[in-house]
């Protein structure tokens, strides 16, 4: 069933805006729909060489030796590199992106061990891709094959094969005594959880497993690098963070970041997966050896096997409540796959698992566990979806057992301003209650659901709003338009939302702000496009840059009119004297005067928007109707509504797009997607034919309701909206499946086989 009628958005923001909240055409639209936009694979250069990467066929193996001599002598081959070509030293230094240099280097090119099937072992540069590929087959690697561990349960079992002999479990800042696959154990406490359980009338405890899933961006990783004769390195690549690539290449290669320039090409999706570097340093190494630019384009199989998915997990949640549905205590155990190197998103999962609830007594144990899979990476609200699947399922079960409406029980326990999470931070103004109220009031929630084997489910989820650093500059053109330079690669329409915030301050049309995403030499430091931070933090930098322009425009008018700047104001694109009504100029008219009155005006804004949770973050909720085929277990989504707090929707179309995109990815995670692993650690479904992501043919229209509870810390009240929307879908679908079949699903994906198994074991 496709729904076409939208419930009105819930707008609590009271400020009036001229540009913000409108829906102008996106500045990059024409280039993208005509195919003229330049992506990484489009890049070419004189003397371009082609690189290919040899990858480990084993999930866990000691590398005894690598002989590259035959490959080096092969026709067309100009260079071969291995980990031995990387500099040594500084291995323990942790870069700004939070990863130890040694791990970065060993992930880019394996050293003494291959730690996952697909782990890069060597790379070749040749005159043609075919020559490079032929040469890979001539590289002789002597492996000692070891047993792999593929899940956190296997990795944490007594006697499990150890990935890193030098790894000890860190707990409370103290290292354990024995080698372990558990990189870290942490715990958060709030109140007295045992006392809370003792006071509860009902206690539900369940254990959940979620599969490893990939972000599934359409454009594979691609990079070209030129190590020039002057010692400077230029990288063109598809990335979510050009400055982070610069810093990682600097760390991996051991050269100063000032010698590296990164030009971000247009990006065909990332969702967190294009934050880290893979082929960029390898291209640079090959270019250094050959003196020519080298390009590597990953295949889809390489993307699945050689880049970071988001982790599978084992999560146990125990919740106690009184007979009225007031949650008295909650305990979570979260063990997340880090992949081959430490650093899973379990910390984020632990901070999100109970974020929607003001439970007085909480305990959360988190475990970061290495396994023989690619190093896991961010994927839209990393860690939160796994956690919400568990917590939301248990809350829905408690509601059912107590006979309380599932939205009402969440409203009764909803986190609000002043609620402290177990990990410490206290929420500022947030929109958890407003999202739940909008769900309860939505026609979908009360609509009849007719027919057999059908069920409705709901869920809510949370993700932070990351602040971090952003920079913008704005220069005023003589025709009254302005050029805006930013460092945030645009993966979700952010050029438009950043430009609109500048336009609002300057009182000009959004179309008169021309945004450009610049290279790392052309704009100030800007953190990654991720953490739902670009509309928030880069938009804030654009606001500040526009304020700088505004101040200078007023000063210029003051010089032209020979009056005190304090008696001039600029509003809605008009500069005027507050004391003489004759003195009045539009922004455009004053722009035309700049060249003859002192020159161009350039404004800049550089902000540090704070850490995780800046601005309070965003809550998203789902209402979903499904039908379960009783013979096959296939789940069909009939109707889906996503409600999310955007703080203030700068460009509502792009907010809706984020909500729909995140919902679809969450549905795929819930129903179909998984790294289907063979026992030897090989991924059996490393193509988009077999790795089943939902398409438009699988789903109904995703209805959206934007709630606007302004963030207290942003000039326009913006909250990042890129991630919270992926958090609730699996739990909402599990709830709906329960209402259709009577079984509670405890495993992702909830594919037909899993549903039938659950039904048969009922």
């Amino acid at each position, binding site marked *: 069933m496709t729904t076409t009628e939208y419930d009105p958005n819930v707008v609590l923001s009271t400020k009036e805006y001229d540009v913000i909240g409108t829906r102008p055409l996106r500045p990059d639209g024409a280039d993208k729909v005509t195919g003229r936009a330049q992506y990484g694979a489009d890049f070419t250069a004189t003397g371009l060489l082609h690189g290919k990467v040899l990858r480990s066929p084993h999930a866990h193996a000691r590398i005894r030796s690598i002989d590259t001599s035959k490959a080096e002598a092969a026709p067309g081959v100009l260079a071969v590199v291995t980990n031995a070509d990387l500099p040594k030293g500084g291995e323990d230094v942790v870069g700004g992106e939070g990863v130890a240099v040694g791990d970065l280097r060993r992930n880019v090119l394996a050293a003494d061990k291959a730690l996952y099937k697909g782990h890069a072992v060597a790379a070749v540069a040749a005159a043609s891709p075919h020559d490079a590929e032929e040469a890979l087959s001539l590289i002789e690697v002597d492996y000692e094959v070891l047993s792999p561990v593929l899940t956190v349960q296997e990795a944490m079992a007594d006697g499990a094969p150890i990935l890193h002999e030098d790894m000890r479990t860190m707990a409370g*800042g103290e290292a354990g005594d024995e080698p372990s696959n558990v990189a870290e154990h942490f715990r958060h406490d709030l109140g007295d959880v045992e006392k809370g359980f003792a006071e509860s009338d009902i206690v539900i405890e369940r254990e959940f497993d979620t599969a490893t899933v990939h972000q599934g961006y359409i454009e594979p990783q691609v990079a070209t690098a030129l190590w020039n004769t002057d010692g400077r390195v230029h990288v063109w690549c598809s990335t979510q963070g050009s400055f982070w690539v610069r810093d990682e290449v600097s760390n991996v290669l051991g050269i100063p970041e000032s010698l590296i320039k990164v030009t971000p090409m247009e990006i065909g999706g990332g969702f967190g997966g294009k934050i880290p570097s893979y082929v960029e340093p390898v291209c640079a190494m090959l270019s250094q050896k050959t003196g020519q630019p080298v390009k590597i384009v990953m295949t889809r199989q390489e993307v699945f096997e050689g880049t970071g998915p988001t982790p599978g997990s084992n999560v146990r949640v125990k919740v106690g409540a009184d007979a009225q549905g007031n949650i008295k205590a909650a305990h979570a155990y979260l063990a997340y796959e880090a992949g081959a190197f430490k650093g899973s998103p379990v910390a984020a999962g632990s901070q999100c698992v109970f974020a929607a609830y003001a439970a007085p007594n909480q305990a959360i144990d988190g475990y970061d566990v290495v396994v023989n899979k690619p190093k896991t990476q961010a994927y839209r609200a990393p860690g939160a979806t796994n956690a919400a699947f568990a917590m939301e399922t248990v809350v829905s079960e408690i509601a059912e057992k107590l006979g309380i409406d599932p939205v009402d029980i969440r409203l009764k326990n909803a986190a609000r301003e002043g609620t402290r999470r177990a990990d410490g931070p206290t929420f500022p103004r947030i929109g958890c209650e407003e999202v739940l109220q909008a769900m309860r009031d939505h026609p979908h929630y009360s609509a009849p659901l007719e027919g057999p084997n059908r069920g409705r489910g709901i869920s809510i989820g949370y993700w932070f709003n990351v602040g971090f650093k952003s920079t913008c500059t704005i220069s005023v053109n003589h025709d009254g338009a302005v050029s805006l330079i930013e460092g945030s690669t645009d993966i979700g329409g952010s050029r438009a939302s950043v430009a609109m915030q500048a336009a609002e301050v300057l009182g000009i049309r959004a179309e008169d702000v021309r945004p450009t995403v610049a290279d790392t030499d052309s704009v100030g430091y800007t953190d990654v496009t991720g953490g739902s931070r670009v509309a928030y933090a880069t938009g804030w930098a654009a606001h500040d840059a526009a304020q700088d322009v505004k101040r200078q425009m007023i000063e210029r008018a003051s010089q032209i009119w020979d009056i005190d700047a304090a008696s001039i104001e600029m509003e809605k694109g008009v500069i005027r004297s507050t004391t003489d009504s004759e003195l009045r100029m539009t922004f455009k008219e004053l722009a035309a005067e700049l060249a003859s009155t002192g020159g161009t005006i350039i404004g800049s804004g550089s902000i540090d928007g704070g850490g995780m949770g*800046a601005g309070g973050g965003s809550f998203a909720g789902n209402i979903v109707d499904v039908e379960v085929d009783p013979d096959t277990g296939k789940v069909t989504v009939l109707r889906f509504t996503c409600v999310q707090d955007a703080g203030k929707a700068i460009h509502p179309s792009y907010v809706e797009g984020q909500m729909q995109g995140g919902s679809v990815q969450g549905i795929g995670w819930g129903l179909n997607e998984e790294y289907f692993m063979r026992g030897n650690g090989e991924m059996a479904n490393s193509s988009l034919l077999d790795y089943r992501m939902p398409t438009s043919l699988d789903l109904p229209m995703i209805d959206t309701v934007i709630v606007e509870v302004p963030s207290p810390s942003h000039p326009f009240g913006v909250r990042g909206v890129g991630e919270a929307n992926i958090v609730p879908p699996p739990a909402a679908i599990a709830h709906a499946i329960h209402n259709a079949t009577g079984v509670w699903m405890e495993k992702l994906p909830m594919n037909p086989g899993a549903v039938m198994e659950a039904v048969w074991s009922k």
Partner: protein
Amino acid sequence: MPTVHIPSLMQKLTDGRSTVQVEGATVRQVINNLDEAHPGMKERLVAGHKIKPNISVAVDGVVSAMGMLEKVGEDSEVFFLPAIGGGAA
């Protein structure tokens, strides 16, 4: 005096106390004073002159981007929590 919330797994250094009050106008001063009262805390929290990469500090409910330089008020609450790994940003 600021109140420092001690992570559960570090409470053996504070004789099981979950909160400790120590003087300090910055996180650096708070940690130094905490270490004086409870030796070993600084080693758990600090590497060189920075908070360890796997730890974040929250002051009055807000995760700080300034680390050791973050200002702490007379009545502030200070938390140490695991930093977000996995490239969450």
